[in-house]
């Protein structure tokens, strides 16, 4: 029995189906990320776990308790909100103590908890201030402090970093990760930011249109996305999708890439049964930008690297790498190159492709051809 089990949970308003049967399960101490575009139902799911929204059908269990009918306060959870939702009329101390007061925690114990939480989050000097007197980052800390004070079995985070500026967001992100490692609590964290999802999560559920498209570890989701949506959503810059015709040669999948001057055959991994069914048909070749790079940066220990010629259309230096846009089969394709090997617009460059990492997708069902 996991720390949180979500079994075939659905949510509908009349004929509008917000969630179409969600199944998720995580172990104690895991960090679950619900990620997806706005309107995918991730916040609704979080609210249902919290007990703020009703469950139309299905079952949610925290620990071994089914909580469908329990009110939020009886679920042993704490939640951090995007707008922080600090009580504006109370000082930081009172904000943290509010939930403890209601639960009739004795005063001396409250003081102890507040002191401990304030120390953990370094907000000791802010305890007597009102929320309006705090900066965004400080409010975020206080909101987390309020959640920590309760010491619940499950923490819920609803896009807690979206209102912070970019620098602070990265700082708070690593603090949340550190906090999780230190306290070992179970966390469900909603975000639309795929980088937050990758960096924080033990388990990621990529959601779209009320469904979980893929549920797995960050690396699984990155390396073996279930479909075109997940492949495109996770990773920045996102994966290149090139329409190709699939052939088979010597037991390997082979595709042709046209750079505008010549057609180059690319030999991929040994062909699988599901791929063989598509021989002679159109498929989508998925390549992440870092798997298409200059020969110098390519991982030379791997054999079987494929070399490709291409014409540079745009270069975008990011500092450590330069993103080079080239064209294959009429599709703009981004390669991540060493700045020195990036070339200039109009120039011919040589790129290498790691065929073991290249993915093939069914263009109709959008599923990956494993």
């Amino acid at each position: 029995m996991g720390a949180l089990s979500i079994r075939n949970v659905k949510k509908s308003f009349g004929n509008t189906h917000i969630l179409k049967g969600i199944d998720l399960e995580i172990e104690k101490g895991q960090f679950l990320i619900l990620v997806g575009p706005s309107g995918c139902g991730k916040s609704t799911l979080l609210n249902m776990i919290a007990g703020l929204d009703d469950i139309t059908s299905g079952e949610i269990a925290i620990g071994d308790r089914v909580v469908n009918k329990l009110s939020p306060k009886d679920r042993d959870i704490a939640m951090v909100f995007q707008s922080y939702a600090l009580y504006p009329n109370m000082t930081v101390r009172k904000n943290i103590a509010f939930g403890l007061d209601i639960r009739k925690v004795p005063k001396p114990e409250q003081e102890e908890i507040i002191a401990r939480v304030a120390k953990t989050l370094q907000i000791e000097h802010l305890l007597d201030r009102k929320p309006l007197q705090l900066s965004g980052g400080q409010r975020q800390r206080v909101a987390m402090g309020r959640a920590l004070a309760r010491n619940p079995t499950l923490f819920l985070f609803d896009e807690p970093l979206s209102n912070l500026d970019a620098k602070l967001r990265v700082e708070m992100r690593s603090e949340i990760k550190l906090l999780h490692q230190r306290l070992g609590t179970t966390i469900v964290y909603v975000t639309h930011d795929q980088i937050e999802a990758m960096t924080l999560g033990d388990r990621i559920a990529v959601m779209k249109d009320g469904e979980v498209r893929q549920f797995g570890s960050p690396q699984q989701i990155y390396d073996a996305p279930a479909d075109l949506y997940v492949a495109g959503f996770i990773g920045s810059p996102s994966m290149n999708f090139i329409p190709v015709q699939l052939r088979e040669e010597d037991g390997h999948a082979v595709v042709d890439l046209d750079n505008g001057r010549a057609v180059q055959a690319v030999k991929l991994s040994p062909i699988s049964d599901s791929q063989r069914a598509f021989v002679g048909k159109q498929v989508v070749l998925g390549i992440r930008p870092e798997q298409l790079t200059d020969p110098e940066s390519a991982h030379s220990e791997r054999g079987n690297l494929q070399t490709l010629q291409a014409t540079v259309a745009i270069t975008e230096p990011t500092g450590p790498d330069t993103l080079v846009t080239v064209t294959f089969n009429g599709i703009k394709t981004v390669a991540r190159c060493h700045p020195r090997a990036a070339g200039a617009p109009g120039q011919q460059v040589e790129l290498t492709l790691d065929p073991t990492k290249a993915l093939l997708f069914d263009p109709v069902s959008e599923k990956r051809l494993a």
Partner: protein
Amino acid sequence: MADYPQSLQAKLIRFGIYAVLVLMALWYLAPLYVMLSTSFKTLDEIRAGNLLSLPGTFSLDAWSAAWSSACTGVECGGMKRYFANSLTMMIPAVLISTLVGAFNGYILSMWRFKGSDMFFMALLIGTFLPFQVVILPMAQVLGWLELENSTGRLVLVHVIYGLQFTTLFFRNYYVTVPGELVKAARIDGAGFFRIFFKILLPISVPTIMVCLIWQTTQIWNDYLFGVVFSSGEGQPMTVALNNLVNTSTGVKQYNVDMAAAIIAALPTLLVYMVGGKYFVRGLTAGAVKG
């Protein structure tokens, strides 16, 4: 303020603007001046005929008469009883309508139910209803309730008639308060009433002030409900003032009438002086951040 060298023309224009403003102010203050000066005059002096002259002998007789001995119809106890009537009617009516309005606003914004928007629309229509339309059905309802006490009747009438306004004020304020505040409180374990009293009400001070001022003015100044739904000794100040001024026996005591009218206007004047800045602030209150 630094003095910038100005052309003669600019100075003239400036002088003209101030002259017009001063004239306007005097024009609007003139009735108040006439009331005040008349209230301090003796009857003889009033009969002498100069409306705008300052009182020759500064007499408080009219004020004390208005307060404690002037006759309204056959009664000669002055305004003090009716002043007290108005206070005992106004204070509960204002407090109850404000509190219930806040509660309604809280439910209509934070705990929406099926049809809550319809309900709110219906309430809104109430704000457009003129007093006169309400009188007959209200009289019927008061009859059914067998409520005899004038003050009690007026409190009920004013609470009911004021609710749509106070509900509107609070609802419009609470929709600007992030709903996550209520969610956070629910997870903290706070219930329906605790969230209202501990979190929302304390941050509503500007709106509370708006309601207090609005309702105080409305209820204190009301004449129509007062004259229809109260009787005899239970009448509010406004009705008594009318009776006083319209008493047709004996000599017309303008100085007493004026003093009584000023006494009748004092409470609302006071409320505006104390709470005026909140009124503007509350009406323009935006979202509460954090």
